[in-house]
């Protein structure tokens, strides 16, 4: 459990942001991860009441407030109508309904957990985050390591016709996946993103580019390229050799599903 000397809720995001820039401060936006880890900090700034939790279509984008719960995302008619059922697939293994009622979209993304199937899926969907005071940044760029003390207010997913697939391997249904891969194909692009390697979600850029250059390329070559360019390691859930062995299987199945 996260322990702190002081807990505050601020009137607005500007104040939260100025507090968050100081040392030894933790934002919370749902607080579920904070219950898992035994940590201590000086100040906790609870930003949840300041975050929009709406899900709506705006122009050619789906706009999700950072405060929306994973359960809301799972049950949203707007998401279903937008042909983004893959988001439901990306969260349904996470704990139970009660937990998904507490976990927020913003909190999930800010955690940058490598095991998050939602993050991997959103990268594959070429989503962007909107950071308070900064504006729109691609999720892929956000995950590279910057923007550490910034606050996510929105997530934007471009709406377009596409095929997608999420393949995962896990020891138990509600356990974190030990490897997963999301593949999204639209008229022009194919994006392959792998998570639980166990590092953060990573785009198989060479394989994805290869497809763009040669749309008729056999799936096997894409698999071989992606396997070569991504790093796979060991952790409590699986060894590197297993991840390397199973990644091609998952990717092959995902590619088949998106028609490659």
């Amino acid at each position, binding site marked *: 459990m996260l322990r702190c000397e002081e807990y505050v809720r601020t009137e607005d995001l500007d104040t939260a942001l100025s507090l968050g820039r100081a040392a030894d401060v933790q934002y919370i936006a749902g607080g579920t991860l904070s219950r*898992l880890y035994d940590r201590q900090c000086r100040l906790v700034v609870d930003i949840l009441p300041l975050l929009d939790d709406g899900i709506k279509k705006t122009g050619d984008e789906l706009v999700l407030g950072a405060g929306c719960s994973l359960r809301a995302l799972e049950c949203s008619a707007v998401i279903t109508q937008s042909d983004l059922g893959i988001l439901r697939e990306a969260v349904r293994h996470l704990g139970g309904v009660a937990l998904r009622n507490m976990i927020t979209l913003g909190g999930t993304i800010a955690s940058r957990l490598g095991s998050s199937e939602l993050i991997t899926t959103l990268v594959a969907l070429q989503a962007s985050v909107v950071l308070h005071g900064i504006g729109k940044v691609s999720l892929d760029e956000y995950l590279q390591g910057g923007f550490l003390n910034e606050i996510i207010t929105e997530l934007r997913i471009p709406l377009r016709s596409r095929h997608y697939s999420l393949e995962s391997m896990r020891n138990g249904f509600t356990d*974190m996946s030990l490897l997963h891969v999301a593949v999204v194909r639209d008229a022009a692009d194919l994006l392959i993103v792998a998570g639980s390697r166990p590092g953060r979600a990573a785009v198989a850029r060479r394989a994805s580019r290869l497809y763009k250059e040669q749309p008729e390329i056999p799936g096997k070559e894409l698999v071989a390229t992606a396997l070569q360019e991504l790093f796979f390691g060991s952790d409590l859930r699986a060894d590197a050799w*297993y991840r390397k062995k*199973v990644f091609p299987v998952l990717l092959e199945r995902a590619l088949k599903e998106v028609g490659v």
Partner: protein
Amino acid sequence: MISRSHAKIDGRSAAMGKPLYVEDLAPKDALVVKILGSVHPFARIERIDSSKALALEGVVCVLTYEDVPRVPVTFAAEAAPEGSTHDRTVLERIVRYMGEPVAVVAAESEKIALEALSLIEVEYTVFEPNFNMEESIGSTALYESSEVFTHFDNGSRPEKNIIAAKHERHGQEVHEVLNESEYSVDLISSTQAQAHAMSETHRCFCSPDPRGKLVIYSSCQSVFNTQRIVAESLGIPPYKVRVIKPKVGGAFGGKNTTFFEPIVAAVTLKTGRACTLITTRKECFTITNTRHASKVRVQMGLDAEGSISAIAVDMLINGGAHGEHSFDVLCVGCNNSLPIYRTPRALSFDGRAVYTNTVPAGAFRGFGGPQVQFALEGAVSRLAWDSKRDPSLLRLENCITAGESHPFVSGGVVKSSTLRQLIERGRELIGWEENYPARRVDEDTIRAVGMSIAMHGSGIGGLDRVNATVSLNYDGSVTLFVGSCDLGTGADTVLLQIASQVLELDTEAINLVVSDTELTPYDKGAYASSTTYVTGNAVAAACQKLRTKILDQASVLYSLKSENLELVEGFIKDTGSETESIPLHRLATDLASHGGGTQLSVTSPYRCDVSPPPYVAGFVLLEVDTRTGKIDLKKYVALVDCGTVINPALARIQVEGGCAQCMGWALHEDVIYDAKGNLKSDSMFTYRIPTSMDIPPMEVEFIESYEPTGPFGAKSMGEVVFHTPAAAIREALLHATGIFYPSLPFTPMKVLKGIEELHEEGGRLPC
């Protein structure tokens, strides 16, 4: 009332969140107790300085090894005298696992207590730890011989790191019979430790009563043994300690070890204040106990006619840093496991439990049965595979049946069993004929069936002693007093049903006083699958005696012939006359007032001389993804003989829960340490137990036998229901892949590794 699904008497209150549990009942102004754990897996404390912690405002006391008696005890809350190796004190000077309690702080708040922990200075001399049970034998001893005590020779050899040992022999020499056998196998099976992962972590509080007695509320499995251990470990008389068990939020054997009650008692003794100790989930993993990890070698022979000719079991278990329950686990590994099959011509059991510097092992549902039966059933699977026999038929032909004797079974003979019917019915329900052994579903998937059979005991034969008291109150209601401990299973409800059946009274008219050393008669507690069978027998006997007394008193009071009297549904009927029946409440009131001031009360003991085995046959239908190693359980069938089923609904959830718990052990649960001895799987995030989403559709059926020694023919069922899934899954894996997997858990990684190795060796999948 017997064979009815009476609702659990406290189920609704629990579901509504009523204050029933230890933490709900703790005094709000109680001191908060926190524990400082060792940062080394094996070390001697050279200096411990609590002065800075004590100087912190709000800190009331700090205890270390210097504040507690140095007499070795065991925290195993079982029989008295306890057979476990006595090797520890409340707080140790030599710590033998990472996180072992070094000091205890009691403070006015949790925050202060935690801050105080950080102010305690400890200097250690660090020793080389040993985490491997095989390497530990004969290497640096964890204990001096003088630090260890046993009530009888349980095989303890501390100088060799042996906690306990057990050896049994029957019939011819094993190797001679194996040489003569048509087929034989010699296999080693390994099983990992398992965490109990109960909902409610370990917790207790202690407060002084007006006479200075220590009143302990504890989430425990035995109030009387807890009382004894607190008294022994602190050097005070048991009558100065009262232990009460409120509702327990799960235990599974984990709370059959008295880790924390002596600590809160010591704090209250020192401060005169109430104090509460609630373990965190991490402490529950790191400080308490696990199932014994094991390595079990089974040699088994098969005659040309298909009869099992020889069984030799060599069981090695990791007891970790302390000796609680290791001897008992070996005993159950032998006596509650091997008699599942008819006595072979050669039979032997060798068991050793070993000290290492890991979290202590202890009691866990099954108690040696799961480890040995996984290995034993694996040998049967492999024998059948090698000899091209159907393993279900091999079991059908070799399993023990009612009326047969066995040298290792309690009482020497099996008096009740429907095991053969269980196997036959299970084959039907799983679709054995259609699915055996395996078939390919698609390019990547093979579907297969597997099964296993299991037994256990009902209480500890020759050892368990309990009592039940039942009183007729002035208003015609009855009060049942029992010292047993319902751990959330519904055992209290079952005891009420038994009383209700004998007395022909509605359960609502029977009050229940349970689990309180001051108010209830002696009961050994809830372990060894015993409350229904052992305490249930005492309750039935006490109620029967009360029934007789009621009729005798009615005869005297109302001048009726006692031989004509019957007690029927709350009325005393005189079958010899036309007179109106007398309501029981009238007799009770008459007795208590003008009739002579008598309150009828009966105490009946029960000596558990035998431990009749319940049986389970478990069948699994599963699919294996041969490219990822992932196992997908499609269906599980559990057939159960627990004698008469007193409460079908409660019995069914025991079966479902036990099977689910074993599926977690079989497929993914694992207790993992790093190289320094730190437990890595120390949260529900890193130690995953199965959820309902992991459990396949499950069919449960009971085929009742009638156990002549049981209450209304009942036997136990709490532990036996754990045993079958791991072995059944392994058998199905063997059918699907042709590979005998030697160790649990069957993670996708392990299964795929086996398939990869098969391919590398030029082998092929069977279908």
